[in-house]
């Protein structure tokens, strides 16, 4: 009986470790793709961003994050407004990630640690970005669904992108009585501004 327990513990540990490794390999491939796009001098800045946006849209749980970030404004909005909001949010997310990664394009990085969080069924992957004199730690929260990995959050030096966005959106939404339709207009204008900055 004791041996069965031991076997089960070892089995769980091995399967969790291989699950985390699989996620690490996947993440490395996607991060390299984004950073390589920045280093590619044969394409225009606009094309670089399009590649990056496509990668981010494929690999982030954009719609799920959009819903979470909208908070109480989500429940009261119409279907079409929600659809438009998700579309705008996905671009907003891509612009945020792309802008951050742009700064890291000439830095070295390494995936230093990974672990599987059984309680929440997610994999946490630590990435260290090395600057000349210091380094910054980014933790990726990755969830698997239907044999595909999705990034559900990103923590930069203990600061969660999703929680920060929720707080930021809540502050803006509060001023317009949590009207998602009016918020879409604000989001669209911000996206235009961010896009201009990123491709200049």
């Amino acid at each position, binding site marked *: 009986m004791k041996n069965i327990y031991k076997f089960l513990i070892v089995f769980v540990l091995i399967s969790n470790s291989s699950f985390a490794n699989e996620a690490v390999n996947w993440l490395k491939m996607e991060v390299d793709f984004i950073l390589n796009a920045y280093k590619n001098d044969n394409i225009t800045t606009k094309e670089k961003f399009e590649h990056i946006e496509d990668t981010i849209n494929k690999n982030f749980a954009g719609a799920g994050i959009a819903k979470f970030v909208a908070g109480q404004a989500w429940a009261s909005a119409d279907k079409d407004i929600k659809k438009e909001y998700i579309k705008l949010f996905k671009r907003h997310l891509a612009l945020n990630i792309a802008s951050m990664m742009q*700064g890291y394009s000439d830095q070295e990085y390494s995936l230093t640690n990974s672990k599987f969080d059984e309680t929440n069924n997610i994999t946490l992957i630590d990435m260290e970005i090395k600057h000349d004199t210091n380094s910054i730690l980014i933790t990726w929260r990755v969830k698997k669904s239907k044999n595909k990995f999705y990034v559900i959050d990103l923590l930069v030096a*203990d*600061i969660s992108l999703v929680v*920060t966005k929720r*707080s930021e959106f809540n502050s803006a939404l509060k001023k317009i009585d949590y009207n998602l339709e009016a918020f879409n207009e604000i989001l669209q204008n*911000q996206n235009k501004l961010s896009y201009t900055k990123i491709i200049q």
Partner: protein
Amino acid sequence: MKFFIYFVFLFFLISLNKGTLSESSDNVTTYPVDFKTGTFEDEIFDPLEPINRAIFDFNNVADKIILEPAAKGYRKLPSPIQSGISNFLGNLKMPLVILNQFLQGQGSNGIESTGRFIVNSTAGVFGIIDVADKLGLEEKEEDFGQTLATWGLGDGFYIVLPIFGPSNLRDTSGMVLTLATDPINAYAVREGEGEFILLRTSINAVDQRSKIIDEVNALRDNSIDYYAAVRSSYYQNRKAAILNIDDSELTPVPLISVEFE
């Protein structure tokens, strides 16, 4: 005696803060319709928001025209010079870091930091070279704000300080205590070199800012409400520093559905 009165006054202010404000500041609004578990601070207690926003705008302009260009220039210095300055300033902070570690009951960290301070101040040439890190004596930061939080004081309301940036009532009190008790500053004042404090604070600000140029710019360029984004970031960062726990345990995992991607 002056300092004692000062300390009692601060303690009185903080006690007031604990009794009357911490409860409100810890209020968390959650919407069960969006997630089943976890708590998120959608509402940070910010009764001075209009004034804070005005100071924040001023700080933002000051950052754009003074601090950011200075930090960018600093980043162009050879790496050993940047590291040397950063290590030297970090070492100057160590006496208060050690004191705060002991005040928080972190005995082993306090001993480790004492070793770090001795090694770096001697073998590391006044802290310019981080010899202790190579010996496995890790750098850990603690300040009076964190100590007061460990002793159970609530955040108090959110404040944006001119030049110093985001803070809250507890952390501002901690900052004042730091300025008042720092032995290096006290020595400089005694020797009639008060301007050293200003120089130290300025170089420290440039050094710290140089480490987050990309992150700040990404946040500033892509925020709908930059003020709210900085406020949230500040609270998350301070929570991590106070609790000294792994970030994965710290921030509750948002209940994000990937089923409809």
